């Protein structure tokens, strides 16, 4: 106990400089526990859905004392998450780095050759499937999907849709909308979903495809309006917002919220984090959050998760091909 206490104080005080040498201490095969702060790499910029969620996880882990060491969130959102992917792939075998993923986990390596194969990463746990909604500024005249389509047509290709980067989830939904309605949209990339939401409310762009959590604050303040949800059923948080499916347009798209470790993460570390996220998924805070923010909690681990990742990657390769965005 005393031993572990001094170690903790050591790592905190000397910050990361000393942590490297502490990390060399052999990890015990049984009852493995992290012996320096756990780095939680986020594939997106600050203030977006992925970022907020990762920080919520960090807070719950700390509050419920689910990890022996503090968790430090680090944003590496550059190049649609390429920065984070590359960082994880350069840290093979590490047991103190985990990454919070988005769908750009599949699309970014498909679009650009950054020397990363996601099959090599170690799947840990999928926490939830996040949803997408089409938003406009509350000052806008647009009330329905038909209004929106008509307005986009009238803009003649100059309709500004904000998003988090070409090839990112919202750009795929945008492409599906363009394809379904035969319209043309100018897609403007920003650094994160929070930035996108702010620019919509500030009137710098005309519409967005945000996660509910990113717009919730503005929605409650009456500054933004949901037009249509891209889910099979209506969202409990927006009972009056129709889904694209019920309006007769087959546009359904999910965003996975998962955690992976680097290639060759030691098995006992994987077991530790899996147990940690399982406990997290049962916490009261998480249950409340998923309800309020219109997320679907859907816990999945291990080989099943890897199978899911590979299946989704194949699906996204197809979508990208349709968009003419494939890397080869």
């Amino acid at each position, binding site marked *: 106990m005393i031993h572990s206490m001094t170690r903790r104080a050591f790592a905190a005080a000397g*910050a*990361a*400089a000393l*942590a*490297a040498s502490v990390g060399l201490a052999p990890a015990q095969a049984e009852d493995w526990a992290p012996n320096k702060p756990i780095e939680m790499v986020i594939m997106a910029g*600050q*203030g977006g859905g992925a*970022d*907020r969620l990762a*920080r*919520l996880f*960090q*807070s*719950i882990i*700390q*509050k419920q004392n689910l990890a022996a060491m*503090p968790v*430090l*969130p680090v*944003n*590496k959102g*550059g*190049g*649609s998450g*390429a*920065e984070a992917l*590359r*960082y994880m792939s*350069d840290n093979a075998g590490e047991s103190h780095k985990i990454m919070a993923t988005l769908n750009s986990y599949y699309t*970014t390596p498909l*679009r*650009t050759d*950054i*020397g990363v194969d996601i099959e090599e990463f170690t799947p840990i746990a999928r926490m939830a499937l996040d949803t997408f909604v089409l938003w406009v500024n509350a000052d806008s005249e647009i009330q329905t999907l038909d209004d929106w389509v008509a307005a986009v047509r009238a803009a003649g290709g*100059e309709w*500004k849709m904000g998003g988090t*980067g*070409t*090839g990112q989830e919202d750009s795929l939904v945008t492409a599906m909308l363009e394809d379904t309605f035969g319209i043309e949209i*100018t897609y*403007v*990339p*920003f*650094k994160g979903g*929070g*930035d996108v939401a*702010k*620019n919509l*409310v*500030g*009137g*710098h*762009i005309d519409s967005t495809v945000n996660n509910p959590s990113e717009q*919730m*604050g*503005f929605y*409650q*303040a009456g*500054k933004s309006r949901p037009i249509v949800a891209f889910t099979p059923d209506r969202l409990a948080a927006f009972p009056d917002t129709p889904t694209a499916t019920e309006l007769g347009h087959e546009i359904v798209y999910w965003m996975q919220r998962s955690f992976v470790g680097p290639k060759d993460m030691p098995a006992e570390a994987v077991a530790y984090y899996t147990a940690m996220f399982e406990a997290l998924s049962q916490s009261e*805070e998480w249950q409340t959050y998923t309800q309020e923010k219109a997320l679907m909690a859907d816990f999945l681990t291990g080989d099943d998760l890897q199978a899911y990742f590979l299946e989704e990657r194949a699906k996204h390769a197809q979508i990208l091909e349709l968009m003419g965005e494939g890397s080869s």
Partner: protein
Amino acid sequence: MEILSLLSDGFAASLSPFNLMIVLIGVTAGLFIGAMPGLGSVNGVAIVLPLTFVVPPSTAIILLAAIYYGAMYGGAVSSVLLGIPGASTAVATTFDGRPMAQQGKAGLALIAAAVASFVGGTISVVLFALFAVPLADLALAFGPAEEFALVLLAFTTFVGLGGDDILKTIIMICLGLVLSTVGLDLISGQPRLIFGDLPGFYSGISFLVLAIGVYGVGEVLHTIESSKSAPLVTPAKLTFRELGAGLREMNRLWKTMSFGSFLGFFVGMLPAAGATPASLMAYGLAKTTSKSPETFGKGNIEGVAAPETANNAASTGSLLPMLTLGIPGSPTTALLLGGMVMWGLMPGPMLFIEQPDFVWGLISSLYTANFAAVAINLALIPLFVWALRMPFTVLCALVLVLCIVGGFAPSQKLHDVWLIAGFGVAGYLLRKASYPLAPLVLALVLGPLMESSFRQTLIAEQGNVLAFFERPLSATFMGFAILFFLLPHLKRVRWRARKSGVAPAE
């Protein structure tokens, strides 16, 4: 009236003995964390955040505010003493702080920094309390075009007011912008300038690595050369009389400091900008409005006071978009945002309406922390100054060790240590050829924002470059930018006209 009662409740809470103790601990810890190059308020808040879940939320806020302010004060310490900016916000503080320390006036420079930070913090907290809600709308009015115009303005305050060789300044800005493109492109995700396929370059070149290299290592090399025969000990001492004289001297600077506070608060409030451009612009403004601009960069106390008021005011300002819009303007405020979610608070437009006690509690905590920070900082100045009396041979080695640790710690990549060595040599050579280093470092900090906002605007406006002049806010900034760029030329023309005996009618 309701606000006043909420504020007084907040003060009552933050002044309880337990919370007061928390403030003292937080500020002292923050001060040292901020003074270490390589560690900043982000690290301080990150380390402490877990603690905030065991203490009551009101205490937690106070602790975080104390660390935040402490680190902001501390950033100036290494700028002045070692010439290495501890954070990008403290770059402008080195311009005059370092020369002052070399003249043996390190104590005075640190007093100036502390008092200026206090004034900046105070004015900005008052502005925050009075105008937070209406100002949130102004922050929303800031789109990519406005961001670009603002960054351009920050650059031109530099070119126009630099006074150094303008061509050299522009060359260094361009070099810095090139360095800022290293890594993955924000818009397309393609790797750029990665020198073959060096993994270390994927995450770009961080500000800290460049600053530690050119300022830390470069400065050490330079000093070794200039004092190779007789090791020069900076004659630094500080007596109470000097402390008093220093405080009196600050009295003269109220104009500079109030300008700096307002500017800092408004620039810091804009989600993307933050404290770095704010401190830079405040420095520029102080220099233009000064009666003796030529003394800037050579140890003018105003050159320390202006950026320090601005960066503290900006750090208060940057809380505004975080609280009212839910958009963190800096890594530190992003951490605070995470904490708030955990305390069950929803940052965003509704926060001020639904949780007024939290908001006003935070404001009064900021105020208490600001008071504690200035008191502790002033008390510790003799200790900091004493560190400078070490023999040069010892100090030199110590600074180099700090440079390497500070560069390695954040990323834990040896790649960055090599870069620091490379930048150190480059910085030394550039200094010998009398190229200004600050524009290089600042271009690296502001480059990514400038590039992405420029490209976002052009994408949104279908490639119409005139878009920057079509929107009222961005057009105003662009106008000022052009004015500042032309100012030195105009001055020269007038000076020539006067010299040739043709008295211009004024």
